[in-house]
Every structure is written in C-alpha cells, then in structure tokens.
C-alpha cells in the first residue's frame, strides 16, 4: 500500500489509494486555450492523414479554371479589355471556391463526430463549449487555407504574377473566408443530426453562394435583381477584394481595370476593401457565436 499525500485532506482518504492521483484543475482561460488547441490540432492531423480528400477538393477548382476558363476564353478572347485572359479574370473567384468545400465539409464532420466519435469525448470533458467551437472554426479555417494555398501555387497558369505582397494578401483573405465559411458550416452542423441532411443542405447553398459572388462575371452593369442578390451573398465581399488585389498587380490600362474589377458598390457608393472584409469577419464571428450558443444547449 502506498501512502499518497493529499494536500487538502491529509491521511484518511489517501490510505487506500494505490494509484497516481492527478489533479483536474477547475476552469481557467489557459485550460480553454488548451482545449481550443486540441480541437485545432486534431483537425490538422485528420487533414494530413486524409490526403485523398485534399486531392479531390482540388478537382473542382481545377475544372473551373482550366476547362471552363479555357473554353470560355476562346469565346471571350477578342472581346476582353486589355487582352486579359479569361482565366486570369476568373482566377480570384475560383481561388475562393477552392476553400469553399474544404471549409464547409470540415465543419460537417461535427455531425458525425458528435454521435460516433471524438467529439463525444470532448463534450464530456470539463471544457467550455465555446472552446470546442472556436477550435473547430480555427481548424477548418487552417486546413481550408492550406487547400487554397495549393491552388494558389497554380496562379502562373492563369497569368497571375507570384508577387509576395499579392500572395500574402490573398492568403490573408483566404484565411478570413475559410474562417467564416467554417463558422457557417459549424452553425449548420450544430442543429443537424443526419450527415446526409447536412450534405444536401450545403450542396444546395454552396453553388448559389459561388455563382452569386461575381466569381465568373464582373459585378457592374447587372440587372437590378441580380445586383441585389450578389450584394446579399457574403462570398461577394471576399471575391471582390481578392479580384481587386489580383488586378492591382497586373499592368492594365485603367479603363480595363474599371471594366473587369469595378469594385463593389452599394447603390453607387463604392464599398472600401476594409469594410468589405470587415463584413465577412463580423459575419463569421456572429455565426460562431450562434454555434456556441447551440452547443451550450444540452439535450
């Protein structure tokens, strides 16, 4: 028999303890940060071991850029202002798309994990629901951004220069976009208990988000109804700044710039880039807060 000293109540209760007593501390910020980091790291491990997912996630943007992009450039070729390749034009939008699926599906794993996996372990641990959701959002944002960076490596094929400032700007915008998309996915996943329902719902939402974001066409001179719809789409507020970043690094006549990357306007008022990105960040944080609230509710 081993005597174990117990700082709180010495001697009596420790006499029969023959195991290593460990202290499980009560709540603290440090503890929550650790929980966030666990959920985040676990997301990265999962991504690293699941290489097939990384490859398949790349298929769709590659199809859009090289098949659709090449096909349409033969049509649009002569009409493009400043002799810009159509592929260059759609590149920022397709780049946004490359993180779209990865971000949302990484959130979707919550639906499965909650019933049958790792998440259940975390849900009974003495950690706050907030740290679980935050860890998940950051994890999804990280792996989706990785996915985006892989696609970013193909920029040269679309005649987008490998300018360090441009690349850093794009990575930052991708990170923001990925975070907001994951938060959106987590918010949806918090309420849905069936995986196929989650898939169906996100499939239904993702394509409209993409098509309305102005990824494939400029946002000026659209009919009124489409102008309104594009301004409602949160993706618009990332695709706009990304295209702005790409086009400001191309040597183009001002007229061509204005036509292809007109910048976002609200009833004629040009929305500055910072506001545009701010809207996306606020939406992401709001959706994450809703997700946390939903996770706090017990059955």
């Amino acid at each position, binding site marked *: 028999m081993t005597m174990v*000293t117990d700082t709180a109540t010495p001697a009596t209760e420790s*006499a029969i303890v023959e195991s*290593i*007593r*460990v202290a*499980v501390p009560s709540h603290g910020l440090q503890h929550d940060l650790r*929980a966030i980091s666990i959920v985040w790291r676990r997301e990265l491990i999962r991504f690293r071991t699941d290489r097939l997912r990384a490859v398949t996630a790349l298929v769709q943007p590659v199809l859009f850029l090289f098949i659709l992009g090449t096909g349409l450039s033969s049509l649009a070729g002569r009409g493009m202002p400043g002799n810009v390749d159509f592929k260059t034009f759609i590149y920022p939008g397709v780049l946004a798309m490359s993180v779209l699926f990865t971000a949302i599906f990484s959130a979707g794993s919550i639906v499965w994990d909650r019933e049958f996996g790792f998440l259940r372990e975390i849900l*009974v*641990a003495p950690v706050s629901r907030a740290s679980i959701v935050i860890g998940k959002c950051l994890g999804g944002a990280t792996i989706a951004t990785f996915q985006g960076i892989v696609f970013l490596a193909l920029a040269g094929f679309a005649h987008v220069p490998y300018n360090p400032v441009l690349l850093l700007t794009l990575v930052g915008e991708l990170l923001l976009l990925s975070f907001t998309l994951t938060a959106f996915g987590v918010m949806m996943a918090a309420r849905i208990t069936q995986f196929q329902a989650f898939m169906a719902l996100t499939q239904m939402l993702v394509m409209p988000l993409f098509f309305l974001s102005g990824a494939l066409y400029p946002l000026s001179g659209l009919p009124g109804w489409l102008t309104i719809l594009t301004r409602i789409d949160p993706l618009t507020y990332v695709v706009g700044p990304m295209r702005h970043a790409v086009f400001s690094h191309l040597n183009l006549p001002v007229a061509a710039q204005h036509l292809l990357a007109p910048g976002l306007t609200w009833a004629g008022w040009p929305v500055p880039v910072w506001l545009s990105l701010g809207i996306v960040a606020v939406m992401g944080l709001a959706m994450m807060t809703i997700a946390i609230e939903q996770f706090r509710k017990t059955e």
Partner: protein
Amino acid sequence: MSPTVRSQNPIPAPARLVPGVTVSIPARTTGSQPLTVAADGAGGAPRPVIEVSGLAKRYGEVEAVRGIDLTVLAGETFGFLGPNGAGKTTTIKILCTLAKATSGTARVAGFDTATQRDAVRRNIGLVFQDTTLDGYLTAAQNLRFHAELYGVPKDAVLPRMRQVLDMVGLWDRKDSLVSTFSGGMQRRLEIARGLLHAPHVLFLDEPTVGLDPQTRSSIWAYINELKGREDITIFLTTHYMDEAEHCDRIAIIDHGQIVAIDTPEALKASIGKDRVQIQTADDQAAITALAGTFGLDAAVHEGAVTFSVASGEQFVPRLFTELGVPIRSVSVSRPSLDDVFMSYTGKTIRDAEVSGTDAMRQMAARFRGRR
C-alpha cells in the same frame, strides 16, 4: 490474477514517482458535499457518490426514464440491468451531464449534474457504448489529448499513462495507430483513457457489448483488477445477466423504472423458487392444466412452458402423473438473475430484447444513413 499481474509489472510507488502532483481535486473540498472515500476502518459509513431522486426524462412523446431513485456508495460496483431501450443509456447520459433531466435531481461525486456540470465532468470517467477513440491517432496520442483536455499536470501524464496502459495490457502497443486495434483492445484502451485523470466514478455504458465471450471475460478481469487497485466507484449498464453477477449491487430497470435494487445474491434469494421449463405436445393445454391442477401461473418463454415453483425437483414427478399433457422434456434450474428479471418484469430479458432489437435495427438504419 491481479497479484501475478502486479508482481510482473511492479509499479513504482506513485507518490515517490511524481512528487507534488498527488493532490486532490480542489473543487472537491469546496463542494457542498465533500467526498470521502470508503471507510477502511478509519471511521463512518461509506459516502454516497451517486444520488438520484425522482429522475425522469421525456423525449417528446416518449418517456425514456420515469422517476428513478437510487444511491451508489463510494467504492461500489453498481450495475444497471435491463433490456435495450429500458432507459439505461438515457440515465447514464443525465449522470454524465450529456442530457438534461425533465424532472428530478442527480448528484455525482457531490455535485449537481444540472447546475455544476464542469465539477461533475472533472470527477467522472466515461466509456461509451460506441468507440470515441480517434483512429487517426496512436494509443498514446489519444491518451495525451485526453490528459490535456482534463488538465492533467504534465509531469504526471507519462507515469499515469504507463499505469493505466499496464493495467489493460496495452503499454507495448502505445505507439500503434488505434485503427489497427481489435474491438477488445479498443475497449480496453477506452477504459484506460477513462481512468487517466483518476476520476471518482467510472461510467461504463455496455462495456462488453459486441465483443466475443473470451474478450468479454478479459475485460471483466481488467475491471475486477481495477477495483482492487484504484479508489473508484463503477457504474455500469448491461443487458447481460452474467455481467450483472460481477456487480456489488444491481438495479433492474424496465420501461424507464427501477423494479428491483439489491445485491445479486439477495435478489436471487428473494425469488425462493426454482424455475421449471417443460416442452410439451400442447403448450396451451399444459398452461391451462398447470393453472387448473396446480394453481400455477405459467407462460411460454424461449419456446418452453415456464413457471416457478418451490422445490422444483420434488414437483417434477407430480407433474408427469397429474398434468395430463404429454411432456417431451423438463428442465429445473435454481433461481438466476434471469428469474429475478422475470419475476419482476414478467418476461425474460431475451423476450424483452425482441422490441429492443427493433430499436437497434432502427438505430442501425440511421447509422447507415449517416455514412
């Protein structure tokens, strides 16, 4: 078996191994009901570790649990015995803070499961019916994540990990990916993980379901060894009668209510009758005759006319001469937990499982749907 295992794997004295980390959980002493461990002569009766009163849970129209009262004492191994769908898992979910009771209260380790969730969570370990291990990680990585989640002090992690992995015989496999483990190994690893943060109460939800008999008995050997080694209360659910025999006390639960609660021996003794099963040419006629001639209440269970009678052996000769229905075979058995279950619920647990199987089939369909 535990003495041999212990001598093969001598574990250094923990206090010396990790000086300074052997402190109690702070919240325990500040809680409204500070917990002391089973008295070893030092004084007083063992304290209740789980106290449940009037617990009920309703999911829409379905009353999963309808008013449960029970008390589990420190150091006990307490079994919740009942067919699938009886409310066992729902009760465990409430005790583990994963579900909120519709009414009633539950205290675990001195803390209220509804209002002091984090305090409860710090003090319990939980092994789920479905695995919650991360197959992408090694056994050791799974345990390390767990240790971090519970804030186990860094210098205590390795010795404690070694201790729990030794206990379930998996120390030499600690660097293998969990996805390469068999079902039994995964369950053992989960038990080890549930113990890593030295909880006061270990909840085991159907700890051996889906495992082959040999693995089941080895899991029980580990659990029994654990009882000798750790200062812990075990609360488990099962629908296997033979598993319930391992428990100090069991509660029989049926349709969300506890119908009996006592030690397995006391429950069996309370029956006082032997179980007789006969195969006849005409079961219905036999049942009528049993009621008419002997005043016995018989019914068909598991394909045989079944009834309980005192001194079964002496009754059998009378049965042959007086029943008037040809008998093909007779079996007489001493009361088992099966009979206890039957006498309290009016059916055998396997009869009860028929509806349970339907529920499981639905679950399986849902499970497939999620893929």
